[in-house]
């Protein structure tokens, strides 16, 4: 199992990578961590005429605090995210979520930007980006544009990225939130069957505001459960409200049947995992851990 031939290009800067993308007119692939791209090359599911290696682009793997946002460079690797003191304190959902991604070897190489651009519907980083209300910063030779994570994913392995664009940065708003993730996978580190992430801001009176519940593996893309999130905001996550939110999330989902689980099984899991995630959220609040 070997890749089809391609031209190897090494970009020394974002500008250079963008010029190369332009030159190959959509027939080149950017190589970052390679944890999704290289298997696809090996299996010849992708046969681009060129592979543009961006691993040597300086400055693309920085984690910066900017006011009430944290900006993470597209080339930031999972292990860095997992061990970043800044992220542990400012975006604990991200460091927690990374532990569901692949294994140590994959996390050594895999990158945040690569995960978003690859757009696996069960991907944990896309899920976390949506739950946290992140903005994906995309660049081409024409300039930059900022795309809300909720609008970034169009389908399985399909995003709003144009062939001549690349993800350069992901910006996460930082608020005084509590967050949680729960995932059902056949084994730890395997692709998720479904995953649910929730973020909320505690009110003074025991209630919650700005609750966001996102689901992975239940549709063509990770989704924000808009109605469920709206219902939960302003409540104290009482069991009957949580149950109704679970039903709303179920209604918003259109799960696939694949080798890992049937659509029916995924539907069965949705309300259960919405409940578990929200219970975890409550527990963490009462523990004051996050």
């Amino acid at each position, binding site marked *: 199992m070997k*890749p*089809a031939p391609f031209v190897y290009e090494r970009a020394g800067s974002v500008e250079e990578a963008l010029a190369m993308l332009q030159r190959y007119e959509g027939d080149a692939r950017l*190589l970052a961590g390679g944890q999704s791209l*290289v*298997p696809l090359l*090996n299996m010849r599911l992708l046969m681009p005429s060129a592979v543009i290696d961006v691993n040597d682009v300086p400055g693309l793997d920085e984690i910066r605090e900017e006011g009430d946002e944290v900006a993470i460079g597209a080339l930031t690797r999972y292990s860095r995210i997992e061990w970043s003191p800044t992220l542990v304190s400012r975006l604990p959902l991200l460091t927690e979520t990374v532990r569901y991604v692949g294994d140590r*070897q*994959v996390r050594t190489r895999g990158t945040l930007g690569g995960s978003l651009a690859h757009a696996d519907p069960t991907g944990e980083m896309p899920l976390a980006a949506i739950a946290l209300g992140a903005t994906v910063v995309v660049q081409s030779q024409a300039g930059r544009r900022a795309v809300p994570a909720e609008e970034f994913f169009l389908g399985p392995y399909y995003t709003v990225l144009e062939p001549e664009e690349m993800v350069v940065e992901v910006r996460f708003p930082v608020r005084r939130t509590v967050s949680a993730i729960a995932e059902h996978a056949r084994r730890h580190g395997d692709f998720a069957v479904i995953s649910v992430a929730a973020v909320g801001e505690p009110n003074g009176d025991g209630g919650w505001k700005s609750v966001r519940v996102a689901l992975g593996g239940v549709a063509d893309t990770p989704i924000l459960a808009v109605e469920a999130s709206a219902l939960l905001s302003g409540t104290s996550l009482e069991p009957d409200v949580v149950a109704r939110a679970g039903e709303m999330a179920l209604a918003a989902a259109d799960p696939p049947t694949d080798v890992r689980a049937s659509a029916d099984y995924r539907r069965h899991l949705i309300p259960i995992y919405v409940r578990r995630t929200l219970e975890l959220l409550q527990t963490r609040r009462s523990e004051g851990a996050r």
Partner: protein
Amino acid sequence: MTETIETVRVSVKVNGEEAVRDVEPRRQLVDFLRHDLGLTGTHVGCEQGVCGMCTVLFDGEPIKSCLMLAPQADGHEITTVESLNGEELHPLQRAFKEHHGLQCGYCTPAMLMTALALGRRGVPLDREQLEEELAGVLCRCTGYQKIYDAVESYLAETAGSGGTA
């Protein structure tokens, strides 16, 4: 394809020694190590990043060498299981022997390299964390427990020596 494929020069330090070869860009690092450098200690399994057999250290960190193109290793340092060669067994190898951490041996080079990186990282791990750290390498013989025992004992041994053993 009728056109000729251009090769890329790869200059890499493997187990402390410089190696320079001209390879097709599509050459996987694992094939580069095995076929171009003759270092067959690193094994090939699934070639899609699932089984972990081809784990080597890239600048000291464990990676799956079937998911890296050889040109990506240019200018970097690779450590393979051959680095453990010596007159006597390396303490990590000894731990595997003492704890019966291998049967058929196919996954052993990858287990060793993953464990070696853990020892160098030097972060204390409980059993569950240890299992998670080794989860990237599959073993179909042992049921894992004896591998965990071996690595646990190695990590305990190296904890005092800064992971240099």
